[in-house]
């Protein structure tokens, strides 16, 4: 396999890692106003992701840096092109991240309320915007090649807000919300667990419907492309996993439900990557203007070096992160939250 293809897959793996892992902690953030009846509830919810949210977010940073190293053209064109969308994501991630650390440190309800709002909106905005961005990459955005080399994005923020893009955003939001609800029911005991499971049943239905619509639309859009078979297979696996997860949740098998949702997110993204292949960005101005994997990639030398680094590091990363999840495997309850705040 070409190294460029290998790196297309590695970046894919990093992004899947990001959406599966940060996905459930976005979901927990979104669930805050729905599941948290009082402050102790909300603290239980936040503590389910306390030890892991920042290492989950690290996946985004590493995916971004890998994009920079492996596909500088992609990084440069997309990041400067989707400028305002990324600005919103950054502000959301900043406010959300500091809120986990700060909400319990101040005094008074007003303080805590503010940071709860930041956690909620900071968990809603990024998945929506990422969903919009990825859907647009697949659908095609107005990029064209420039004489001096490279590509340039010629649209605006509004260009991205089209029906397919927005559907992608809602789809991603529902996927992570559902994922987070199942995670809460997996990580807690008592009333909060029941509430999470009940809500996951409802949200799960919506996720299945919207997810199916998005995947079908994607398939129709790519009829006749070389990778259509792979797209259909990935989409089918995602759909089956999502439905299986719903059934498992309804049956009280939260571990299986969580795994099912993770598989669904992974394969939905894989379907998107297959729809992109062999491009990184489809151009809406004509196939000749699209950004190919080859055209955007770094030199062979850099890719070789980075392949070695990734091959050595990624298994290690997975091992020590898995260890973290193992250490913090116990379920949380209201009684475990110390009464007196810090």
């Amino acid at each position, binding site marked *: 396999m070409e190294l460029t293809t290998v790196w297309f897959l590695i970046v894919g793996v990093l992004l899947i890692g990001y959406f599966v892992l940060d996905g459930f902690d976005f979901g927990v953030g979104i669930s805050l106003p729905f599941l948290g009846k009082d402050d102790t509830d909300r603290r239980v919810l936040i503590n389910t992701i306390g030890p892991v949210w920042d290492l989950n977010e690290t996946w985004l940073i590493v995916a971004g840096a890998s994009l920079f190293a492996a596909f500088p053209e992609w990084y440069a064109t997309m990041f*400067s092109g989707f400028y305002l969308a990324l600005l919103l994501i950054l502000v959301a991630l900043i406010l959300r991240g500091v809120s986990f650390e700060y909400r319990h440190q101040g005094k008074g309800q007003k303080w805590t309320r503010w940071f709860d709002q930041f956690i909620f909106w900071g968990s809603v905005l990024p998945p929506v915007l990422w969903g919009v961005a990825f859907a647009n990459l697949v659908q095609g955005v107005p990029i064209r090649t420039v004489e001096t080399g490279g590509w340039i994005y010629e649209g605006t923020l509004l260009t991205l807000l089209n029906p397919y893009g927005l559907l992608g955003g809602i789809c991603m939001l529902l996927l992570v919300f559902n994922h987070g609800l199942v995670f809460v029911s997996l990580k807690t005991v008592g009333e909060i667990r029941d509430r999470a499971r009940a809500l996951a049943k409802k949200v799960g239905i919506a996720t299945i419907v919207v997810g199916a619509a998005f995947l079908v639309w994607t398939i129709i859009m790519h009829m006749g492309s070389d990778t259509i078979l792979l797209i259909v297979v990935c989409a089918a696996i995602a759909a089956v996993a999502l439905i299986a997860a719903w059934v498992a949740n309804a049956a009280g098998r939260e571990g299986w439900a969580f795994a099912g949702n993770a598989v669904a997110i992974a394969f939905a993204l894989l379907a998107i990557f297959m729809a992109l292949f062999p491009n990184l960005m489809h151009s809406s101005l004509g196939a000749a203007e699209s950004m190919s994997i080859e055209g955007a990639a770094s030199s062979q030398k850099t890719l070789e070096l980075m392949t070695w680094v990734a091959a050595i590091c990624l298994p290690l990363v997975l091992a020590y992160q898995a260890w973290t999840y193992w250490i913090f495997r116990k379920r949380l309850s209201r009684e475990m939250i110390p009464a007196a705040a810090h």
Partner: protein
Amino acid sequence: MNEFLDPLVLARWQFGLTTLYHFIFVPLTIGLSLLVAILQTVWVRTGKVKYLKLTRLFGKIFLINFAMGIVTGIVQEFQFGMNWSNYSRFVGDIFGAPLAMEGLIAFFFEATFIGLWIFGWDKLPKKIHLMTIWFTWLGTTISAYFILAANAFMQNPQGFEINAEKGRAELVDIGAVLTNPIALGQFPHTIFAAVMFGGTVIVAVAAWHLKRNQYVDEMRTALRFGAWANILAFVGVGLTGHTLGMTMTQAQPMKMAAAEALYNNASGADASFSLFSLGTPDGAHEIFSVRIPYLLSFLSNGTFDGSVEGIRDLQSTYEQMYCSGADTLLTCPSDGQFAPVIWITYWSFRWMIGLGFLAALVSAVGLWITRKNTELPNWVWKVAIWTAPIPMLGSLIGWIFTEMGRQPWIVFGVMTTEQGVSPGVPGWAVLVSLVVFTLVYGALAVVEFKLIFKAAKEGLPEIEHLPGEGGEGTGEPDQQQLATVY
């Protein structure tokens, strides 16, 4: 074009603002993680609860910082693509590699082990838990190395060649990138400065309590520990700073000339270091100055009779080199000026050195007057408290010097800053993001400092049960309270 909406100017302001802000938290994270790890090690070795309490207190301050370091770090990485996309596509092949290596090797590691450290007090055996803070420190340190190697490429590009066909710089030798002499000099210099910063924060917190006669025994220990850390680190800062200065003179002679506002070549006694000088804003005409003969020669060459190149000579050399060839688009600044803004480099160089000296001096005096357990007047503690921001300011000003001194280059000798900016991003969009970041960062700074003051003033925590002894249950959900939660 409307000058107010010039994307280049706005993007530069944004980069400066976000980088300096990020750089308040990063050094404190690096410095405090080491000092907290040492305190915790002493606790594990001696079993004295005093050290556990100090570990918890300074660990908390460290964590408040860590959150800020992470979230502001994401902005750092994204804005290369958002505001500097031409730069990113030109050097991504070589500049992206250390960034990605930082992520894969160091950052994952650091973020994982800090989670284990914060929440693992009751879940991990004592020694394993101690290991997690050392791993956190190791992660931050390796991380700093890769980032400094990336920065060093901008200061002194090594290990690359220009691929004319693709119109970009490409990696030839990663070894040369990672052993860039600027990186080798910058790394220990930065780490030692970070330890100074951590040390003075500990000194300040301890002094605040000693002034109020609280936790006298523990805080005396903390004060002297912080002061020692500060002084020892200062020795490291000074030695590495000297090495770095010489390397810098080799790699970027214009930066050294600008640091001294030296317009003409000078050698021997004429190569003097001016402690203070008054002149026209551009430094071209001097009115009054206090000078130490030979010192500039020593700082730049390590000998007293070496010569130092001046701004005027370098300017004409660079015009020849970078503006007279066929392909000068990337290398010739539009105004033809190769000197950075002199008054900024001149004063930042002095303030960086001066603040470092001042912090170490205060610590040395502090160690001397606290050597015996006697009553001390209030002003002693006040001075110690106010030392806290000094190394921080020194570090920030040091970065202003490093980055402003690099101008007009984004990559020295390869690409000018004005060529690196994103084409197609309108000025108003950059202005919006500059305003948003300024507001968000400003608000967070207020909250952040409030929280640090609050944590510092709360003082030492009560230790209800010793961590690492009991608590690890059978795997069933137990109802024991957690030691650390949000």
